[in-house]
């Protein structure tokens, strides 16, 4: 069974097997997150914080929790991930989607399901008996092709991919000439870690890649500007022939 709906400027796709998934709860979680955090909605809580009409200390505990989580990740990544734009404006886009996915995952609970939100994936159980959920990774050089396929097995339940866009980088990179990596996929136990670190590695380049793979229990597949691949040993095993 599967369902698809649009929210937060992207598409949520939920697939499941066996007992009915709590689709209504999942939809409610994403719609609530969009209402609260969208900067495209001038009346969202985050927009009001960003324009100064709402004090951060008067904001909801949910918003402050997400902001605190984002600040924590900024510290963990040495600033490669940050909830602020270069001009200092608050922007939680980099974490809200993954945060909502984690909430949705908790609502879905155990069972066999696969949640894909705009290319980031969180799964539980397996696709069918004996077969893991397998994430096809888009080739950034030819987006009509898949680069490879990554099975999500064991504790590795989440895969997030970040990229530097052809229409200008959507992640703020530190380098003078844009991102070293065209695309970075991080596989981890939880979707927030995977998503934040994928973003941080695109932002911080090879330096962040080496630093973060050494400190976090993750596997990474990075595609550089020339289409060359770099993979951690664990990722190498996952995608090996």
């Amino acid at each position, binding site marked *: 069974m*599967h369902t698809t709906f649009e929210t937060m*400027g*992207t*598409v949520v796709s939920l*697939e499941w097997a066996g007992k009915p998934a709590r689709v209504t709860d999942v939809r409610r979680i994403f719609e609530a997150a969009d209402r609260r955090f969208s900067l495209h909605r001038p009346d969202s809580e985050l927009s009001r914080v960003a324009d100064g009409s709402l004090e951060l*200390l008067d904001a909801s505990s949910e918003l*402050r*929790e997400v902001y*605190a*989580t984002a*600040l*924590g990740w*900024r510290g963990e990544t*040495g*600033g490669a991930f940050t909830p*602020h734009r*270069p001009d*200092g404006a608050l922007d939680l886009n980099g974490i809200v989607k993954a945060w909502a996915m984690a909430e949705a995952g908790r609502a879905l609970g155990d069972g066999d399901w696969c949640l894909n939100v705009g*290319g980031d*994936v969180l*799964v539980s159980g397996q*696709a069918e008996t004996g077969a893991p*959920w*397998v*994430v*096809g990774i*888009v080739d950034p050089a030819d*987006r009509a092709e*898949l*680069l*490879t*396929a*990554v099975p999500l097995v064991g504790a590795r339940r989440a*895969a*997030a*991919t970040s*990229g530097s*866009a052809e229409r200008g980088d*959507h992640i703020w990179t*530190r*380098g003078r*000439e844009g991102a*070293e990596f065209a*695309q970075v996929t991080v596989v981890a136990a939880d979707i927030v870690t995977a998503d934040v670190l994928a973003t941080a590695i695109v932002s*911080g*380049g*090879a*330096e962040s890649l*080496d630093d973060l793979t*050494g400190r976090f229990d993750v596997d*990474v597949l990075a595609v550089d500007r020339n*289409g060359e*691949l*770099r*993979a*951690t040993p*664990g990722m190498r095993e996952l*995608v*090996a*022939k």
Partner: protein
Amino acid sequence: MRRRAAVASVIASAGVLIAGFQVGAAVTAGRTTTSSGTGTGSSGSTAGTGSTGSTSSGSTGSTGSTGATGSSAKDGTFKGTTVQTPFGPMQVAAVISGGKIADVKVLQRTDQGGRSVQISNQADPMLRSEVLQAQSANVSTIGGATYTSEGYLQSLQSALDQAGFTG
């Protein structure tokens, strides 16, 4: 647990929030200066080595001298000697290809607290021919960066959904 810790840190960080903006700016500025060169290949990896700070200059120099042998350099991966720095040991390896430095890898280094860090999970180059060529029939779902909300990915995913594609 994580959630509870985050909530607690909100309270703790209330006074830090405003300072956070400035700290963030400082961190960003500081890091920008260290990440010289974002190119691929040797310049990118050289930047990675250099970014470990001035203390690493000894080991960087040793790899540099390997490269300086020019066209007579043998191809292969060469480990540099372990250099003691005020912050701990530092060791790199140079990958030589066609007589040029193709890559520099940090094998051993120190973290910000001065502890030595062994790199056990480093992402190394991998040939495309080494990866499983994904057959779409084997794939449950599509992962990729979202570039625009109208992008290829959503289009593909929704097409798969409409087709009732279940992997």
